[in-house]
């Protein structure tokens, strides 16, 4: 077995975890990230406290970044993209946009996702009304320490609506998947809003609640029992304005009645799209995308983290909506798979 490094594309939770795992085994890892710094979405987008740990993103993910930056076995290239990737398992050659050439044993795609762009659902008012915001914006309000304020005039909202499944589970816009994390993130955010401004009433409009596993108690029910967040089973039809406040229209399905309710702020729980670069990534790395546009995986059980190309692995939200915790676990799994070139001999035998 050669001792070339493992190329890791993407420096978010999954990539940071994979790099750390590779380096811990005594091998070299090279991280390439198109952003100017490491950390991925939690750092670049300014997330506040993470689910389920309640640790600040800048501490939790920041710690992972520091751990990678101070590891002698890891080389980091930020502000760079892989432009070509040729060769075979054990003998790959990647060329970066900054001219660097990297020889690699294997590659791990930890390229993550792109947040859904709410402009694609104009009926919900994002881009039309300044007080219609996304969960990412509220994360930033919380992490900035300035509290929950209506962007239009800086007032503390009396009533906030959180709309779930924005950019998820919606065939009309070609996004049939559940983004997995928005229910729990929204449940947590609703509690944080109540904590930061106790006079603000928070309503969550949902189709289903998918605070899976242990999140059920700690987020969904705690939000209702302690923070008194209200959950209303309604898919919102449109968000308009009466000139003073936002007006949320829909049907309360449990009472079979239309609703037209005034709100001060509407928060859209935006889902996880495939990374906008996935078409490019697929072409450069020669890997298939799945029907939704995420990086495709080979069989689920025997070939963890493998893509359609032997020697190229995938982890985290690059292959579908994923939590930070699971992205970190998948990063480690992909590292083991890459180090042992899992699946390569099987593929060679088949040829």
């Amino acid at each position, binding site marked *: 077995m050669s001792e070339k490094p493992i190329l890791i594309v993407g420096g978010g939770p999954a990539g940071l975890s994979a790099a750390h795992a590779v380096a811990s085994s005594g091998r070299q890892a090279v991280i390439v990230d198109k952003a100017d710094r490491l950390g991925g979405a939690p750092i670049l987008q300014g997330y506040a406290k993470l689910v389920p740990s309640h640790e600040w993103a800048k501490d939790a993910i920041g710690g992972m970044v520091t751990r990678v930056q101070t590891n002698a076995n890891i080389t980091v290239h930020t502000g760079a993209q892989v432009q070509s990737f040729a060769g075979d398992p054990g003998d790959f050659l990647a060329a970066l946009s900054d001219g660097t050439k990297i020889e690699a044993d294997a590659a791990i795609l930890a390229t993550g996702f792109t947040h859904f762009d709410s402009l694609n659902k104009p009926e919900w008012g994002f881009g039309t009304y300044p007080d219609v915001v996304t969960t990412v914006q509220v994360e930033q309000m919380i992490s900035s320490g300035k509290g929950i304020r209506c962007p239009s005039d800086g007032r503390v909202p009396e*009533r906030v609506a959180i709309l779930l499944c924005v950019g998820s589970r919606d065939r009309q816009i070609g996004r049939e998947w559940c983004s997995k994390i928005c229910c729990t993130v929204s449940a947590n955010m609703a509690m944080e809003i109540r904590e930061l401004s106790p006079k603000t*009433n928070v*309503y969550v409009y949902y189709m289903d609640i998918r605070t899976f596993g242990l999140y059920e108690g700690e987020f969904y*029910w705690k939000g*209702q*029992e302690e923070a*008194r967040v*209200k959950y*209303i*089973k309604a898919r919102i039809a449109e968000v308009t304005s009466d000139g003073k406040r936002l007006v949320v229209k829909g049907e*309360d399905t*449990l*009472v079979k*009645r*239309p*609703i*037209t*309710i*005034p709100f001060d702020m509407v928060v859209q729980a935006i889902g996880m799209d495939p990374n906008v670069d996935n078409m490019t990534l697929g072409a450069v790395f020669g890997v298939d995308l799945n029907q939704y546009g995420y990086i495709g995986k080979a069989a689920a059980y025997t070939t963890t983290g493998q893509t359609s190309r032997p020697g190229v692995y995938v982890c985290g939200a690059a292959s579908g909506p994923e939590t930070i915790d699971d992205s970190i676990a998948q990063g480690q799994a992909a590292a083991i798979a890459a180090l042992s070139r899992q699946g390569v001999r099987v593929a060679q035998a088949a040829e």
Partner: protein
Amino acid sequence: MPIHEKTLIRPENLVSHDELVIDGVDVSGHWSTFIKPRTITDYNEEMQAEIAALPGGENIHRCWQCGSCTNSCTMNAVNPEFNPRYWIYLIRQGLEEELLRDKDIIWQCVSCNKCTYACPRDVVPEAVMKATAHWLELKGHTGESLSSVFDRGFTDNVVHSGKIEEGHVLRIFFWRTGQPLAPPWLRDLILGLVKKLPVFYLYNLLKTAVLRPKTRGWGKTGAAIEDYVRERHAEQAAALGLSGKGGH
């Protein structure tokens, strides 16, 4: 045009004019029928907290709308409009107007407690029904009934003397509800007693009826109970944003 599915529309939302001419066209009667919107336009944000502040309503926020209470409900089997699951939802979301539509059936809960044992979230729907009926009463949505007048006289009597003097309870009830103080059936009952009871018992009956003796040492106990009831009433009135002494 006639509306064929009128049964689906609440009568008060149907509007028509007996005499109406628009642009020279006679649209009197059902030709001018239109349906008022039934849109919910606001939430009463205090409602859940108010019901939760009354005895029995404490766990209402736990409800996840599974419908086990309604499925197991004795009253729902008799009257499909009797739907605890639905009312709990209305209260939790503050849909007051909707709840008030059912104010005259909510009290019908027979406290069989089947819902209590069916509820996976320990909401205790039976107790929530009591709290809701109580809330409707305190808020003045349901008026005094014969039974609530009787209850008040009964309770006053117990708190006053530590025991029940049936004759007094009855007289107060008749007097407050404007009924004759000695209806024929009562006169017959008393005459029957006078004819058949030994003198000793009759003497005791008469004595308690006139003197209304208290249970021995009742003074402090009665006062403590009175204080307690007054405190609870004040608490509940405060929780419901009522100024005066709530309840009856």
